[in-house]
């Protein structure tokens, strides 16, 4: 059979697959299919689709496609932004912990606390800061998240590896080196809870964060340039 004929047969396969051919034409196509592997293969590929058509509703096909309301995207974004602001700290911390993990596994304990800071002049809010204390004794891990709010700063501190019962006093320092007590907590072995307090001190004023832990003091700079900052042990103050 020649190409032209073959093409004609092929064009009938759509109607054949859909069962829409009159009986005589149908019989002729069936006879051709007997001897034509290529058309049989083509038919198979059309039959799968043809079998799905009864599911579709022609009126629905012709109805204009339903479009979401124009403001739905903006509402979803707003909700995500709100959730992100609320949960962002937790999200970031979760990721952060992964990097800190190993060294402190032996003392797999954590105390998360929030510290209130004495009020100081307000200012523009700055991005949330993650501060990692560096130069710590082996097994000790300290990091903090400082988050600005319209009312001031929220601090979460995450400490592990120090002796249970150790009294920890937290402070912030401003550019002039003035120290602001941020409250204290006692590190309890095996605790892993989150507490949050708020302070009226604006994060943009803070240059350094520190912890007096027992007879040692650890500090880290609060650097708005980076999300994660190495700190230094400056010894007792």
């Amino acid at each position, binding site marked *: 059979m020649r190409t032209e004929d073959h093409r004609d047969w092929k064009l009938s396969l759509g109607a054949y697959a*859909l069962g829409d051919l009159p009986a005589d034409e149908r019989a002729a196509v069936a006879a051709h299919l007997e001897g034509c592997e290529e058309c049989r293969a083509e038919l198979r590929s*059309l039959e799968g689709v043809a079998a*799905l058509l009864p*599911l*579709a509703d022609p009126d629905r096909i012709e109805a204009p*496609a339903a479009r979401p309301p124009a403001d739905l995207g903006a509402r979803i974004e707003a909700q*995500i932004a709100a959730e992100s602001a609320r949960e962002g700290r937790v999200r970031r911390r979760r990721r952060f912990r992964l990097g800190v993990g190993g060294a402190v596994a032996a003392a797999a304990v954590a105390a998360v606390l929030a510290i209130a800071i004495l009020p100081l002049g307000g200012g523009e809010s700055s991005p949330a800061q993650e501060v990692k204390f560096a130069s710590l004794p082996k097994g000790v891990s300290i990091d903090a998240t400082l988050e600005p709010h319209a009312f001031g700063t929220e601090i979460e501190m995450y400490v592990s590896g120090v002796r249970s019962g150790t009294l920890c006093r937290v402070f912030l320092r401003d550019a002039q080196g003035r120290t602001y007590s941020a409250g204290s907590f006692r590190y309890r072995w095996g605790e892993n809870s989150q507490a949050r307090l708020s302070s009226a001190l604006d994060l943009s004023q803070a240059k350094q964060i520190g912890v007096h832990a027992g007879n040692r003091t650890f500090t880290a700079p609060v650097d708005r340039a980076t999300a994660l900052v190495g700190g230094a042990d400056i010894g007792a103050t």
Partner: protein
Amino acid sequence: MGALTRERDVREAYAAHSGELYGFAVRSLGDAGLAEEAVQETFLRAWRAGERFDPEIGSLRTWLFAILRNVVIDLGRARAARPRVAEGGVEPSVEPLEQALLAWQVEEAMRRIGEDHRRVLLETHFRARPYAEVAEELGVPEGTIKSRVYYGLRALRVVLEEMGYED
């Protein structure tokens, strides 16, 4: 695009897929308000689980549809749990979800193929009109109708495959 972890990723995903997701939500829930709720919940869940999305495993579209499917089931359950006030008549039959998804995909694919092909398939197959009648109405030879049916089915297959259909 990697994991869906930034707000910008969500915005891009919304721009690319919200139309389809909403279309399916309307189709399966039969209610524009609920569909809106479903799409919103889908993107929120996607955002919360964003780190788990792995483009190596499947497309973002497939992942979002999988989430939407669960949301639709949840919404359907919530709706079913609401006590119904006395109503006359028969409860509208609820299409099983998998079938609704398939039906919606076929309808969506039909909308995406060329106008000529869609028209001919609708008139001859869905509305069972004779080829000759449709040919006359469209002012084309009957053979053209037949070939449009053929190429229309092929086009439909291509679109369905793009949407993830395999037979």
